[in-house]
């Protein structure tokens, strides 16, 4: 074994360990920032049309159908939420900020009681253009939802462009959502 080979053999494991360490560090950092969820499931809806649905409303809002979202002719967010969901409380101010910036948000109350939903909206604010109710949770399954909250970005043609599973943070709204909203506007 010559000197070069010896050195290569010594450095190879070190190099591998360095690459592994760097990847692991990036992974942890992304988990920390919330841009990577190891339990996350990729959405099957991306670049596909909105599933068809028509849901009753949470009074005083009338309900809405998928066609209404498309007919609005603007890129919009569809947000599944529930009064019993803690990340929904955490993301409430983020959604309120999006509303102030003029983003239409269509809310779907998932497996929630009417009174509980209105209590939640009173306490944490109502960022929604309209609020529908999915009490049996079947429309949510057509979306491929696996938890609340989940937020979908739909373009003018009703094609789903982005999905965020879990509570939205300012960082995510600013870094992931804002550029997309701009490009679709």
């Amino acid at each position: 074994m010559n000197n070069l080979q010896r050195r290569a053999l010594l450095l190879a494991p070190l190099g591998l360990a360095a690459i592994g360490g760097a990847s692991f560090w990036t992974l942890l950092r992304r988990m920390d920032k919330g841009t990577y969820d190891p339990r996350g499931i990729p959405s099957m809806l991306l670049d596909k049309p909105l599933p068809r649905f028509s849901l009753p409303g949470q009074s005083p809002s009338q309900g809405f159908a998928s066609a209404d979202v498309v007919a609005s002719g603007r890129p919009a967010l569809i947000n599944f939420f529930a009064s019993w969901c803690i990340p929904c409380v955490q993301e409430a101010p983020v959604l309120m900020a999006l509303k102030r910036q003029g983003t239409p948000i269509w809310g779907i109350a998932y497996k929630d009681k009417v009174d509980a939903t209105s209590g939640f909206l009173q306490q944490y604010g109502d960022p929604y253009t309209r609020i529908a109710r999915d009490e049996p949770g079947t429309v949510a399954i057509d979306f491929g939802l696996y938890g609340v909250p989940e937020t979908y970005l739909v373009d003018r043609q009703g094609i789903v462009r982005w999905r965020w599973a879990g509570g939205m943070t300012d960082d995510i709204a600013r870094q992931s959502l804002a550029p997309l909203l701009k490009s679709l506007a």
Partner: protein
Amino acid sequence: MRFVACLLLSGLLAVPAFAVSDPAELLPDRAQEQRAETLGHQLRCLVCQNESVEESNADLARDLRHIIRQRIVAGDSDQQVIDWMVARYGNFVRLLPPFNAMTVVLWGAPAIAVLAGLLAVLFARMRRPAPPEPLSEAERRRVADLLKS
């Protein structure tokens, strides 16, 4: 002895625990229910992720069990039920992932490991140093001398 027998018997009697706690969930038709359970065991609960839809207590799993049964009663084949789930949740929902470009490494891993092992053995054999030359007459004498002293 009696104790051991009891233990064995209780082992035989123990049935796998199912999350289906509400008899109203079950289909009246035994064959259909059997199919639903088999399918439920092949599908992942998206909430607990390491449990099947049939075993999980999560709300979503209960809804999915219900949908499986609805689709079966509506006359769907097993494949159609699975396709229905995959259309919404992707291949992740299948506890036994299909073989495709994405899963080639996953399914190929055992073969790759065996191959790597074989290569390592071959490599080690090739590099094994040649056995030393037999000792010369002078060397042998020297060894004998050294051992004697």
